[in-house]
């Protein structure tokens, strides 16, 4: 049934009355996601897409049995929403918000680690298990049920790849965006471990990018996985020392160039795709 979410996942939307929150709630409902309600302080008692709105997560949990939440609140309030979700025992927290100050996320991290919550993001497109549930903002139409797990640090690039897989008849067990910020809640290894243990996943596509060492840190785990992993790493052409957008693609202390990552992967015997269409080929060859 894929990883982390399924038909029984009950989702609360934090920031449901905002423009994006409301729009995406509609999209998730269309997809079939079980949205049980939303939270916007001061808007308690109203409804969005026929779902009840509450003033706090605490109040929402008195009336609903949500076990996951998705966060659409603006960056200056987003970490407060993460703390609120953690403190109320939400098991899966998906933070879509882009532009959260890195110092705020550094303060979330040790707190998150001592809780049992799983945080995807921030600055991520969310997670989709086709024909079951979608939490986040990936376009509804790109998914197709199947046996390939997708995990990525990017947003739109993930859509591109999932779309291309689907169009080539390669369905997905679950597609996960872990987010592009330098400090995020879930690592490649966390997701790879789940895919390795998921009987419905037969292989994994992993999409990395320049900056940090998140990709390198997954090599040892990938080497001992029983399932094939196809990687694709972007940012080869991104000149060192330049910040490529807000994606956290900052090269620091000489580590984290895309070329270094690719070389490390190839040295470890992990397949590295040259382009999205190359991913399709490598996946087909590996199964």
């Amino acid at each position, binding site marked *: 049934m894929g990883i982390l979410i399924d038909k029984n996942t009950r989702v609360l939307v934090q920031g449901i009355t905002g423009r994006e929150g409301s729009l995406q709630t509609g999209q998730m409902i269309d997809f079939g996601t079980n949205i049980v309600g939303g939270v916007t302080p001061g808007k308690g008692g109203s409804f969005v897409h026929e779902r009840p709105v509450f003033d706090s997560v605490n109040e929402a949990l008195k009336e609903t049995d949500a076990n996951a939440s998705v966060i659409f609140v603006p960056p200056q309030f987003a970490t407060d929403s993460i703390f609120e979700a953690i403190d109320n025992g939400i098991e899966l927290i998906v933070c879509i918000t882009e532009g959260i100050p890195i110092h705020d996320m550094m303060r979330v991290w040790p707190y998150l680690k001592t809780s049992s919550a799983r945080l995807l993001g921030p600055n991520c497109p969310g997670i989709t298990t086709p024909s079951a549930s979608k939490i986040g903002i990936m376009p509804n139409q790109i998914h197709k049920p199947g046996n390939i797990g997708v995990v990525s640090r990017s947003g739109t690039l993930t859509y591109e790849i999932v779309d291309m897989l689907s169009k080539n008849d390669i369905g997905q067990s679950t597609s996960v965006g872990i987010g592009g910020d330098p400090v995020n809640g879930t690592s490649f290894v966390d997701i790879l471990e789940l895919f390795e243990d998921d009987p419905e996943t037969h292989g994994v596509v992993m999409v990395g*990018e320049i900056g940090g060492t998140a990709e390198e840190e997954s090599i040892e785990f990938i080497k001992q996985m029983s399932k094939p992993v196809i990687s694709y790493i972007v940012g080869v*052409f991104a000149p060192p020392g330049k910040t490529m957008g807000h994606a956290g693609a900052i090269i*620091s202390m000489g580590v984290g160039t895309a070329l270094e990552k690719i070389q490390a992967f190839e040295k470890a015997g992990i397949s590295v795709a040259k382009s999205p269409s190359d991913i399709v080929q490598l996946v087909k060859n590996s199964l």
Partner: protein
Amino acid sequence: MKLYEYAAKEIFSKYDIPIPGSSLVSDADGAEESARKMGEVVIKAQVLTGGRGKAGGIARASSPEDAKSNAKRILGMSIKGFPVKKVLIEEYREPIKEMYLGITIDRKKKCPVIMASPQGGIDIEEIAKNSPENITMVHIHPLTGIHEYQARMLANSLDRDKARELIDIIKKLYRVFIDNDCQLVEINPLARTKDGIIALDGKMVIDDNALFRQDFSEEETGSLEEAARKNGMSYVGLDGEIGCIVNGAGLAMATLDMIKQYGGTPANFMDVRAGANAQQVKTALEIVSSNKNVKAIIINIFGGLTKCDEVAKGIIEIFPEIKIPLVVRLSGTNELEGRAMLGKYGIHMASSTEEAAKGVVGLGHSN
């Protein structure tokens, strides 16, 4: 956002981290006048790039006349493409010992890390590479902040005889780092002089995401980077001939890589971000096309929050004015509507990133 040396030092001074007496001037006469009050001075080019010293942007002067002529020379310079508009005139302080002290974020451990080296003045990355045993790194728990014992360890690694003074400076620099949402704060060199420990240089990089709560006003540079940022987008200029407009940093980097694979060279990186509207797309096209090297432009959109019809609307508004060939790829939210709108104008359409990249490189070569 990078701060100038003088701005970083102003902040240090607010936190009682010792800095030399100084004055910021924009002309040679000002330099002369300042030097007259200070005695022996150092004249330092204020530019947002490293390597000033090697480029001749720093000079010592023992007389006001000397200061004037050096300031004049430096104010006429351009360092790595940055014209020198201001110089800092600073009292000269003889260093007995030059050390390094810096704080940045360790992405792997997701916390601040303080780095100290008794060898300062030169590039910390060089020291890290060649003699890592000379760098003491201490990770700070973001929720407890720096412990006294950690400041002491760092201070002892720098100069055991001046530990008390250094502990004080290290704790203050950590406050600078936290209070100002820094990605980096650096004192290099941190000098021991006969009058005590003093910060002879200062570097600060502020997290752009935190500017909403910080009081830094960005200098108007009139650059394309700035124009993009003001419109909620992200632009980085590059050397090639293919203009790029993409939504999402990851897809944008993939697009750049692909253009390179097909034999082209990108003229820029541009991320219009999730949810871009017609106005932003129009502005993006204006920005990208204003670069004279651009021979062809790729617009690569995979709509999620971004709606393809909004993108098409933006393109249509400015398309007639732009004389540069375009390749547009629209997928995702409202894809059909967007494609239909552009169809009427005879714009080259592509159905994938690869097709679009291949197409735009061809157009660039033939243009």
